[in-house]
């Protein structure tokens, strides 16, 4: 399956012919209005249950799906460059969803991996992609990637992103970003080679904030591989898109590539409102991204605007019901992100990971990308160890019941929820790792061991 150029053109036609909106009207009237109507029609008001952060009700998940589908048709996606909404008929939207593959392979040789559709409580092992596009300095990117690629539970690589290119600040939307595309591919591949995992799939391009990094790194000689790697299309805000995202899509098309990750987030407390509206929005926007970008994997996690993460009760609940809605009602490969706020060398980041990863495994997510160590706020604040823990938990949680995931959430959320807004930054890679030997400090290892033991006691077969 390659990218269908006719479908790209049809969507672009919509971006140039759809109804015109002022930004404010779209954000304040169209989005909240459609979501409120869907919440009301399907009886979803006050269904968020913070005491039980993982939904266990299939009927409720299905109602969220239908609400999301209808909201998707009504809202569409606003193109920033044309100020027009891209809208689909219900039939067109369904065709876009049905066209998504239920499985696909990435990588080469011994490192090829199969991304497969999963249902809630599915025993199929999910795939773990690391890390998120957190900024790192040029001196640590190769050892860090090596340390991450050495982790057996890691299936693919996405970030980190570069803070500088050959010593110059990586300015988004500039020629520096264009150069960074290919440069990052080289550095990532060197880390992978050192880890002995040549052929490992990568998500292109961690450092590409705009489209320039993808144009410079994907499909070019020595760059990211059109039939072994995928391109990340991360849209800009709830129900918004832009030419930048379309350039990434067209680059995949002109390079003969096939695989796209179309994702974004919905802000809990932002324009979609509370947890119920946000969960409907996550479903709706995710379905639209499948239809617009021909995604091989798609997903829209919530992000709580109160603490810029999603490991609190309301966000975990919204994430669980939205993911179950999509994984129960579509054939596609569902992707999601666990947004921790605490940094490396804290127990909190491990507790957040434990809660989020079990929730996503039990809710039918096929592929999680993480960890958002220190909320992605700080340069060099990520280490292999929290990613190892994330992979261990995610894979061990394949096949567990939502009831068990809920019990884990109920047990561990109280360990950190009062720190979500005043979260600990922890320590940087250089400060809690021996960068040459790629081993964690005794302090960080001890924290990992203790939380690992708690996870075992909670019933996870790590």
């Amino acid at each position, binding site marked *: 399956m390659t990218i269908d150029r006719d479908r790209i053109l049809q969507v672009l036609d919509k971006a140039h012919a759809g109804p015109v909106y002022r930004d404010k009207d779209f954000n304040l009237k169209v989005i909240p209005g459609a979501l409120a109507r869907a919440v009301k029609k399907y009886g979803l008001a006050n269904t968020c249950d913070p005491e039980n952060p993982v939904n266990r009700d299939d009927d409720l998940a299905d109602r969220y799906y239908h609400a999301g589908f209808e909201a998707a048709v009504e809202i569409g996606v606003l193109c920033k460059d044309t100020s027009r909404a891209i809208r689909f008929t219900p039939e067109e939207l369904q065709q876009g969803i049905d066209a998504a593959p239920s499985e696909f392979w990435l990588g080469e040789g011994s490192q090829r991996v199969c991304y497969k559709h999963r249902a809630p409580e599915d025993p199929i092992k999910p795939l773990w992609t690391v890390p998120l596009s957190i900024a790192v300095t040029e001196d640590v990117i190769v050892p860090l990637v090596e340390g991450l690629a050495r982790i057996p539970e890691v299936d693919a690589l996405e970030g980190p992103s570069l803070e500088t290119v050959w010593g110059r*600040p990586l300015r988004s939307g500039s020629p520096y970003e264009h150069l960074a595309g290919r440069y990052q591919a080289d550095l990532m591949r060197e880390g992978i080679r050192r880890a002995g995992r040549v052929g490992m799939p990568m998500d292109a391009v961690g450092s590409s904030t705009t489209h320039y990094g993808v144009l410079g790194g994907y499909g070019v000689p020595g760059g990211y591989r059109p039939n072994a790697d995928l391109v990340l299309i991360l849209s800009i805000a709830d129900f918004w898109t832009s030419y930048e995202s379309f350039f990434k899509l067209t680059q995949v098309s002109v390079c003969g590539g096939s695989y796209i990750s179309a994702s974004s987030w919905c*802000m809990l*407390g932002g324009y979609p409102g509370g947890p119920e509206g946000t969960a409907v929005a996550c479903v709706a926007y995710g379905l639209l991204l499948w239809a617009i970008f021909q995604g091989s994997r798609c997903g829209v996690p919530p992000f709580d605007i109160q603490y810029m993460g999603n490991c609190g009760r309301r966000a975990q609940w919204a994430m669980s019901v939205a993911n179950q809605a999509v994984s129960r009602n579509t054939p596609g490969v569902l992707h999601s992100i666990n947004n921790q706020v605490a940094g490396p060398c804290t127990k909190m980041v491990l507790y957040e990971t434990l809660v989020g990863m079990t929730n996503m495994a039990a809710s039918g997510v096929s592929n999680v990308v993480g960890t958002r160590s220190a909320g992605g706020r700080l340069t060099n604040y990520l280490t292999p160890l929290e990613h190892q823990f994330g992979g261990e938990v995610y894979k061990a949680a394949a096949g567990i019941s939502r009831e068990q995931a809920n019990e884990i959430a109920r047990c561990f959320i109280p360990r950190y929820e009062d720190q979500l807004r005043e979260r600990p930054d922890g320590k940087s890679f250089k400060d809690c790792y021996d960068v040459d030997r790629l081993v964690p400090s005794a302090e960080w290892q001890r924290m990992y061991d203790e939380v690992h033991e708690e996870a075992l006691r909670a019933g996870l077969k790590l």
Partner: protein
Amino acid sequence: MSEQQVFDALRTAILEGDDALSTRIAGQLGGDVPVLMQAVDVAIGTIKEVGDRFGRGDCFLPEMVLAAESMLAFMKIASPQLEKATGKVRKAGKVVLGTVKGDVHTIGRDIVATMLSASGFEVVDLGVDVAPMDMIKAAESSGAQIIGLSALMTTSMPYQQETIALLNELQMRDRFWVIVGGGPVTSDYARRIGADGWAADAAAAVRVCTQMLSSQGQPSGASLIYEERGR
């Protein structure tokens, strides 16, 4: 309608984001200075209450934006009446706000713009992907005292620094206070690039802007006025 009923109706109009009602109430107040001043206090108190509720997660962005618009609709009529009657201008200051070049994220800037407007600042919102020189030109032409630079990506943060560098090179640094913010922007970074202000969230941004304008000194980036979360 008694004065208290009018104030209650104004409060309701703001809480419910009903700008038509708040406009109507403002029109009914006339030129009675004590009543006008009390009504303005009610409006300010109500919008602060909405901001606090938003901060606690008890209300959401659409409600806050609509409440702010209702408040602004009221102030648009009430402020000139008050100024005319008292001869005093009641304006907090003017802020040019934008998401920096290479960055198209909007929501953080939207919240800051809303909170500043609701707190009496005049906000010139330049939108997203704003080049450093365009930011400065807008500040100059609008007569703003403050430039607000938002960045959500580490790869767009250099444009905050470059805007300040341009101000220095154009010998305009002392004309504009510069406040920076956004997910990955820390107070250390703000200090390092020579910003005047940094705030962890929108409510803090309002207080920092207020503090900058009440400062005796001139903007220079020599010391940072900043506020962490949770105050």
